[in-house]
């Protein structure tokens, strides 16, 4: 699974810490998601997409082989 988290975050000029605080997660978690090391749960994905006010599908998408 890939994501546009870093792009969306940069577009809105939100730091990893700010996003982490908004979704009640740690900065490490946000960093791991951005690097593709960790796939968030549905709840966390929904929370993040709510912060950016876009749908989950726009933020997270499947890559070939998934």
């Amino acid at each position, binding site marked *: 699974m890939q994501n546009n988290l870093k792009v969306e975050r940069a577009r809105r000029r939100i730091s990893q810490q700010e996003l982490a605080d908004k979704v*009640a*997660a*740690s*900065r*490490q*978690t946000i*960093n*791991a998601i951005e*690097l593709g090391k*960790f796939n*968030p*749960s549905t*709840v*966390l994905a929904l929370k993040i997409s709510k912060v950016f006010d876009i749908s989950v599908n726009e933020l997270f998408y499947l890559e070939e082989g998934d």
Partner: protein
Amino acid sequence: MKNKTFLFPHKFQKVGCWILLLSFIGIPVSLFFCNVLGLIDLKNSFAITVRILAGLMAIFLSIGLFLIAFSQERFEDEYIGAIRKKSIIISTIIGFCCYLIYSTIATIGGACMVAEAFGVSGNIVDPDGFKMMLSDFCQKYKWLENFSGVFYMFIYYEVIFRINLHKLNKSVNNAE
């Protein structure tokens, strides 16, 4: 939506650390002072005192490790949970491998001994000697069986978990 983590609150981690410290330093120091004050006589009861001391240390060590291992981190979220899960799986695999190695060695070694003892005649020439040999053999590899125990699995888990957390923090600092 709340997920139940079945973990102790974070403050229990500090309690666990204090209990660990107590088991490593507190018990031997108190024993020393009891000896100095004459409350116990180490000269006459050294073996039993050491045995009790080792038992007490093992109990406190286990409780301390348990509290540290199963208390929430300062910020416990689903990624930390995923690292916990990974660490538990790896520690269980290590424990199982130790058990498997010990069982294999004990079985093959024991079977070889039995075959050697029975020999061609089909009778054990020296049954007592054989029993002693078998017991010595098992004692020799007993440490390997211990490494597959729950206590060591706590230690594997804790070490693997802390290494992973350290790696995680390092990667975040590098990303800054």
